[in-house]
């Protein structure tokens, strides 16, 4: 990751946009509903102007972040128990792996069935999706580092001390990875839930603009979703760095 501005990279990105504009304008690309980038920019302006975008974005963010936060609250303790208490791992890991093999999107219809077209559906789906990476990464993080634990035993640390001073710091980097994965997946599943379930938020905005044959506004929605994903990931990363600076540096995740 270079901190400096990647000049050729930016140039290619802009050139790509220019080429797209040119191909659509000259009619070389003849899809009926493929807008040139300038139309997308206009669409973005319209969505910003009438406040539709802010409402939809707020709704989606609220659902995704709530589901993710709940998943963190449940997943980190549950994952720690899985990783630290051997019998719990032995007697439940295979069940968890069997459940995890179920494709998450297939649960969206089930959630819609249970909670109807509501925000609850979105949060449940986001929670379920984010729970897996958080749970499994926490469990994996807590299970490793045997040599450090041995060191702790040699130093005659109490069990609590081993947990707080060795296991948890050693697992932090893995847990943060789980939280990041969970964040991006909960955003995706929130969008899906909005497309097939609750008619609100950015997911529904895309479907709605598609049906209203407003490709400019629709592509603008996609662009906003992409930026939102990047921003959320960066936020989780920045927060994690602020809170766990020491541990992350030690794990080489600077």
């Amino acid at each position: 990751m270079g901190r400096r501005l990647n000049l050729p990279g930016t140039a290619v990105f802009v050139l790509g946009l220019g080429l797209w504009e040119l191909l659509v304008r000259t009619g070389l690309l003849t899809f009926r509903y493929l807008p040139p980038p300038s139309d997308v920019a206009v669409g973005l302006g319209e969505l910003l102007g009438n406040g539709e975008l802010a409402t939809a974005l707020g709704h989606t963010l609220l659902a995704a972040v709530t589901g993710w936060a709940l998943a963190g609250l449940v997943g980190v303790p549950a994952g720690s128990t899985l990783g630290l208490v051997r019998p719990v791992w032995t007697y439940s890991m295979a069940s968890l792996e069997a459940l995890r093999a179920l494709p998450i999107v297939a649960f969206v219809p089930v959630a819609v069935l249970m909670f109807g077209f509501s925000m609850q559906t979105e949060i449940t789906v986001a929670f379920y999706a984010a729970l897996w990476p958080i749970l499994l990464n926490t469990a994996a993080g807590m299970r490793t580092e045997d040599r450090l634990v041995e060191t702790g035993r040699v130093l005659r640390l109490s069990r609590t001390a081993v947990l707080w001073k060795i296991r948890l710091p050693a697992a932090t980097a893995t847990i943060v990875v789980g939280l990041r994965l969970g964040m991006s997946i909960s955003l995706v599943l929130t969008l899906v839930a909005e497309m097939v379930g609750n008619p609100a938020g950015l997911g529904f905005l895309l479907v709605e603009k598609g049906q209203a044959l407003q490709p400019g506004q629709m592509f603008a929605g996609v662009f906003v979703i992409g930026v939102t994903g990047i921003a959320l990931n960066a936020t989780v990363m920045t927060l994690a760095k602020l809170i766990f600076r020491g541990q992350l540096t030690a794990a080489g995740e600077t």
Partner: protein
Amino acid sequence: MRGTPLRGLLPLVALLLLWQLLGDPASPYFPPPSTWLDGITPLVAAGTLWPAIGDTTMTFLLGLTIATVVGALLGTLVGASRPVDRALSPSLEFLRALPAASLVPVAALVLGYTTQMKLVVVVLPATWPILLTCRTARRSLSPILLDTPRTLGLSTWDRTAKVLTPALLPAVLLGVRVAAPLALIITLLVEIVTRVNGLGAALGTAQANFLSAQVYGLLTIAGLLGYLVNWTVTRAEATVSRRMRGTA
């Protein structure tokens, strides 16, 4: 994590048993497992279940194959040259950040509700893991490995077939291992959202008609499919990477 003890399946079995014993067969939300089979029977009788599974499998396999070829080729090209890598990475990063779900309505609008549309939506996200692992592997290849066959005067074709391909194959397969479950999920996702053929479409329709037993039955089938895919790619990747290490 290898060697998960089978005893771990106990809670799941217990849960399903309890569900079966205590569940109300008429429950609109939690129909007990024994009703799931009855839920699917109409689909089997109407002859729509097998074509649906076939459709999903076809889209998945075709999408994954295209993604593997495109990802491996692009990854090798991008990884071979620093300037190209630098020039393309911001665009690739942005494309990668687009959640697959947001592509579904777009593809449906631009390409229509067709099988090609399904393929495009599956191929795009499934390409990234393969492209990225392949790029990293190509970048970290030892220059000696590339210079030796050149010194020996091997043709470009032989260099590619005998040196480059075996060297990159484990990385490609590692990418496929990540991409395969993703491709299956996206296939189901497209089908659920657009209702164009396949298992996902059946699931969506069942949910819209409040056939909860059928929803759970189809969910189980989707799960079995997912399990099969995971098992196959993990096995294949392990076998190939073991053999590659053996010859190295």
